[in-house]
């Protein structure tokens, strides 16, 4: 696998008025949140419409998929994943379809911790949403790519990490506080207690820096730290 030992800084760029027009189809974006929180999403642009604005597709929270133009200047960094242009073209169209369905349409997407690759109902092709089944901002991005044959990470290589337990407990409490269905909260809590694997936003964003996908755990973790060091506060 061709993974740069020290990723070129110019592959992770600040999202500004000056750079946003360089997004031609899709890109990954990441920004720092409160404390150690970080948030990742997908930038996409209609490749057939030169006047179209870049849109940000992301899972913000429980039942809250976002799709809107990012405010500029922003605290986001962006990077373009290494996929063939024809694949990127279709992915950009897919992002618009997902926005139609989950933002402007009537489908909903739950927030949950466990990710095991099978994020779509194989028959119906919609995101799993049973109690306790859902996605985080990071696994949402992974799912969009992986469910359409363009995986960003070798997800099976990830293992639960002790330092993620506090974050997972915060998610469970936040779901409870926001009035999520009790069955869902209970299921997510069980996932956390059993030691759910966390895919960190920066590890997903790391896929934008590598020449060959999917990216393994060791490289993703290392490049993720590189990205975090460069995130604007």
């Amino acid at each position, binding site marked *: 696998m061709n993974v740069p030992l020290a990723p070129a800084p110019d592959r992770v760029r600040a999202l500004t008025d000056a750079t946003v027009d360089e997004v031609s189809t899709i890109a990954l974006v990441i920004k720092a949140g409160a404390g150690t929180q970080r948030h990742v999403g997908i930038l996409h642009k*209609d490749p057939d419409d030169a006047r179209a604005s870049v849109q940000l597709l992301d899972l913000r929270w429980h039942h809250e998929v976002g799709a809107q133009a990012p405010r500029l200047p922003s605290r986001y960094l962006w990077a373009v994943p290494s996929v*063939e242009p*024809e694949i990127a073209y279709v992915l950009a169209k897919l992002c618009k*379809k997902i926005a139609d369905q989950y933002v402007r349409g009537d489908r909903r997407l739950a927030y949950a911790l466990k990710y095991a690759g099978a994020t779509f109902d194989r*028959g119906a*092709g919609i995101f799993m949403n*049973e109690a306790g089944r859902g996605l985080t901002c990071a696994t949402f991005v992974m799912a969009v790519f992986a469910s359409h*044959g363009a995986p960003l990470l070798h997800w099976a290589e990830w293992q639960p990490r002790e330092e993620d337990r506090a974050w997972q407990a915060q998610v469970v409490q936040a779901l409870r506080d926001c009035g999520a*269905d009790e069955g869902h909260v209970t299921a997510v809590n069980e996932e956390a207690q059993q030691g759910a694997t966390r895919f960190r936003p920066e590890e997903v964003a790391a896929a934008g820096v590598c020449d060959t996908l999917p990216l393994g755990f060791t490289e993703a973790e290392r490049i993720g730290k590189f990205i975090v060091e460069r995130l604007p506060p």
Partner: protein
Amino acid sequence: MLFRDDAPFHPPPPTELGFRPRSMPYPERRPLPRRRRNLIVHVDRARHDEVDDDRRSAPDPQKWLLQLYRLCADGKRGPAVDLVLYTFDDLLFLRQKERCDEILRTADVDRLMIEVLLALLMETFRARSVLDERQAFFDRVEARLRRERAERAEAMLRGLR
């Protein structure tokens, strides 16, 4: 992290289809959004008055393919890819496996643009284990790509098997 929950979460109910969906509750079926109706009207209404524009009814595979061929012949790549993505999403959503398979079995890969072929493979990727015709369709697409874009065929198809 934003905390907002406008609508309570409901567990999946049994459906009139006689099985319990494994995923989210089925949303109420409703007419296509205006943008999608406009797509179909713009693309095809003049030539195919019988085109379905309601998600309750699935398109006739052969008429639908004719529509897709025409878009590709006219160089309308974006509308053609949109048509594939939205139609197959609806077909899979409605569990219309037979129609999906018929389209995949009868599609002439030489009359479709590369991005349209990839859209068909990408949109059906998640249902690959239940679509009997997808592998044969994949093989035909692969043969064409190896003919026309030999140096990048493997990279384009790597994750789509």
